[in-house]
Each structure stands twice: as C-alpha cells, then as structure tokens.
C-alpha cells in the first residue's frame, strides 16, 4: 500500500513537472516573439546566466508593460523552482526548444500549443479532469458554420457591431474553439472589405471584448490566452475574459465549474487573468467575480464526463431540480 502511494506520488510529480515545463515553454515562445517587437525585451538568443534570473527579469519587464494575462502564471511557476544547476539545465532546454519553435515563425499563428497540449498533456490531465481535445479541423468547421451561417440579427461586417459581439466557450481547454472562432470572425471582417482594414484593432477587440473562455484548469486558461494573444504578437493586450472556475469540493461547498452559471442567485466566482479584476478574497484572495454577459454565441465541446462520485451526484441533483433551465451548449 505504501509502495503504491509512493509510485502514485512519483507519477504525480512527473505530471506536475511535465505541465510546468510546458507552461514555461509556452511563455518562452511568447517571450521570443515579443522580443522582436519590443526593443527592451531581450531575446532568448542573448540570454545570460543564471537563466532563472534572466527570465524572471525579462518576464517582469513584459508584465510591467502588458501581457499580464499570459505571463503571470508562467512567472509563478518559474520562481517556484529552486535556484540550482538542475533548474538552469531545465530552463536551458526549454529555451532551446522555444527558440526552435519561434524561429519557425509559423507556429505563432496556429494551434501548435493545442496540439502539444493534446499530445503531451492529455494523458496527464485527462484522467483527473475529463479533458477532451477538440481537433483543429473540427473546431474550424464548427466555428465557420456558426459564424458564417446567415443569422437574422448578427451583423459581423461592421467593426463596431463585431466588437459588440460576444462569444463564450464555457469549457475552453487550450482555446482551440475560441481560436477557430477568432479566425472565422476575422474572415467575416476581412471579407466585408472594410476601409481602412484595422487588423490590430480587430485583434484587440476580439481578445479583450468578444471572446470569453472558462475552464476548471488554470493552465488550460493560460494556454487559451496564449493561443489567442499569439494571433498577433505585435498588438499588446491588457485585458482578457478567460477565467478559471473552481470545480470540486471547496470549503464544504460543491462547485461545478461553468455549470454554476446556471444557478440564478449564485455569484460566479473564479480566477481571472486581468489586472483590473475585482478580488473577492476567497481561496487565498485569488477568486473574483466573473462578469457574466448575454452571449450571442456559445461554442463548446462539453467535457462533463468522468466526474467523481460526489460531483456526479451533485450534478444529478442539480439537473433534476432544473430540468428545463439549462441552456443547450
């Protein structure tokens, strides 16, 4: 029994390190992309030792200007590691991989992170969190069908109307569906032949206003932010509407992630990635009220399976009490 526990702990630690390494890689790729457009952000090619201090300094610079949504979690992870040769070696390998990825350039515009998430991390996290990867072609098809099918009230060919459009993926994972929706909305905008063509403004509007994502995993929400932000690394974003919602038993209460949204009187709390969010003081002061808006489009790949007995029971009770109120995803 003790041996079993030890094996489980070792495997758990391996999983943690796997996820942490990936988040560091994710930030390093973004860092390198930003260094091309922000002179005072040093490229990974010019990194100095100790590497942990170098990255910490550069990421603080990036955080000071902007991109808090993307770099806050990465820096938290970076400074969690002890200062040691092993850490330096690990960060060196992460930076080498990031440089290789960034130098190919094209990775910044595609769902590379999502694919890696699928290949590397699904087996790590899927068992615990019932995560299901949405393939890029399926996401593209779904987003295009949703956005480009005629709709009586949607006007997506004018910038102001588009900026007022609201989309949510209540289980956004690595952001594949939101990323595909980004592309579909961008297509709709470009095909309307706007004069002038304001792609920078469009990017800012899509990331800070239009696209909303919720997930129960911090690092999944982080990946969503990175994926969306990397659609244009030349345009900085200060705010985003991606939140991590609690799931499971916390403080004697059972939380159901985005399903909590369906309880009319319950305030929806979660972890945001925005600088100006309102802190609510729960869970170490990290939870805040998640703003809920009327959404024009809900797009998702429902993951609500493989739940614990307690959660399954709560979910059953919940659905029995509100058989008709749950909106269809």
């Amino acid at each position, binding site marked *: 029994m003790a041996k079993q526990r030890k094996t489980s702990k*070792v495997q*758990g*630690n*391996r999983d*943690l*390190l*796997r*996820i*942490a*390494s*990936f*988040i560091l*890689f994710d930030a390093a790729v973004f860092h390198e992309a930003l260094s091309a457009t922000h002179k005072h952000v040093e490229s990974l090619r010019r990194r100095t030792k100790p590497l942990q201090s170098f990255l910490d300094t550069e990421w603080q610079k990036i955080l000071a200007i902007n991109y808090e949504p993307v770099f806050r979690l990465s820096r*938290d*992870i970076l400074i*969690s*590691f*002890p200062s*040691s040769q*092993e850490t330096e*070696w*690990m960060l060196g*390998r*992460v930076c*080498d*991989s990031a440089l*290789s*990825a960034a130098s*190919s*350039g*094209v*990775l*910044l*515009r*595609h769902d*590379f992170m999502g*694919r*890696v998430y699928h*290949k*590397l991390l699904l087996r790590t996290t899927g*068992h*615990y*969190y019932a995560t299901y990867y949405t393939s890029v072609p399926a996401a593209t098809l779904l987003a295009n069908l949703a956005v480009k099918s005629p709709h009586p009230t949607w006007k997506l060919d004018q910038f102001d109307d588009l900026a007022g459009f609201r989309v949510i993926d209540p289980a956004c994972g690595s952001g594949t569906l939101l990323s595909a929706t980004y592309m579909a909305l*961008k*297509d709709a905008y*470009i*095909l309307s032949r706007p004069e002038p*063509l304001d*792609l920078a403004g469009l990017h800012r509007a899509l990331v800070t206003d239009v696209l909303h994502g919720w997930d129960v*995993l*911090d*690092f999944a929400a982080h990946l969503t932010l990175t994926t969306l932000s990397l659609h244009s690394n030349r345009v900085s974003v200060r705010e985003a509407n991606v939140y*991590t919602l609690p*799931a*499971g*038993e916390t403080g004697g209460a059972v939380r159901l992630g985005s399903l909590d949204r369906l309880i009319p009187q319950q305030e929806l709390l979660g972890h945001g990635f925005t600088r100006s969010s309102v802190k609510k003081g729960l869970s170490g002061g990290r939870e805040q009220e998640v703003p809920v808006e009327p959404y024009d489009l809900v797009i998702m790949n429902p993951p609500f399976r*493989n739940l*614990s*007995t307690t*959660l399954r029971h709560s979910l059953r009770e919940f659905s029995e009490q509100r058989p008709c109120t749950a909106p269809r995803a």
Partner: protein
Amino acid sequence: MPTRTGKSGDHRFREEAINVLLGSLLAGRGLDANAETIKAGGRPDVLINLGGLKLVLEGRQSNLRNVLYDDAEARIDDGLADFSIAVLYPAGLESAADMTELKSNIEASQFDGAIFYINGAGIARKEFMHASLDELIQMINTVFRQRVQNDVVRQQVAQLEGTITEIVDRASKSDLFFDSDVLADRLKHALGMSDGEAKED
C-alpha cells in the same frame, strides 16, 4: 490563356508596379500579410510575410513562363523565401489610365502560374490556371496550411515532447526537484491543482 477584363489606358505600368500592387491586394484580402518590396538579384520582388513564413511573389508577362518559373524556384533555392508564387500577367494588363484603373484591372483578371514550395522530395510545383485573386489566396493558404500541418508542427511537437520527457526523466532520477514536497506544493498552487482534485475518480 490568361484573360482580363477592364478598359485599356494610356499608361504602361512596369511589371514591378503590378507586382507590388498585386501583393498589396492579396495582403488586403485576408492573407494577413505585410507586403514589401525587396531587392533580390538586381530586380525587385514582392515579399509577403505570411505568419512567419516568407512568400515571394513574382509576376511577368505571359510569354515569359519558363523564365518566370525558373526565377520563382530560385527564390526558394536561394533561401530567400519559404515558398514562392509565379503569376503570369494577361496581355494588356499593364495598360491603364492610372493606378485606380490598374487596381480594378488586376481585381478583375484571371491568372495562370504556379506555386513553388518545399516538400519532403525537394521543391514542388503546383500550377494553376484562370485563377481569380480570391482563388490565388485560397491556393496560397492551402500550401501554407499543408506545410504547417505536415512538416513544421509535427516536427516541433516531436521535438518538444522529447525535451519535456528528457526534463522529467532527469528530474526523476536526480530527486533534486522533489526530495521534499515544497516544490510540488508550490507548483500545484501555481497551477491551481489541489490534492483533492488530483485524486478524483
């Protein structure tokens, strides 16, 4: 044969001007590209940055097909571009009253030509005929996606997978990272993963 519609004018525009205008029209129609003119081998080309990949656009009169194809292929061979597009301009396209009319003429034209790109077997050529501007964009995007999906992404995912596995294996052997629960607890906190959640089902 390439065809074009639109009125002919008094001015004859140089091929380079048509190249630049065609590049900017492609960029304005969804390629999300920064079109700029570069000097390469003594003549200007149009370089389009397409999501980090470089696309060179070469255009010539339709009677210069072989020269054009050779030049377009050479751009990849020289390392100037990741892929290139050779566009044969229909006869008379260069004649227009002004830039506005030239733009209209280009928008209304159909083009023959070829896209050159690297695949596993070297430089591949994909020819097209009677393609409108929108069809040109579709073909460029198709080649772009094929390259991204089939080559670079797979390679990079494999490389990163190797790196992360290497990191995890080395950490497991050294026990340096996890000789106590401190790091694990810090990482769990940062990642929002509590013990309770990790033990579900």
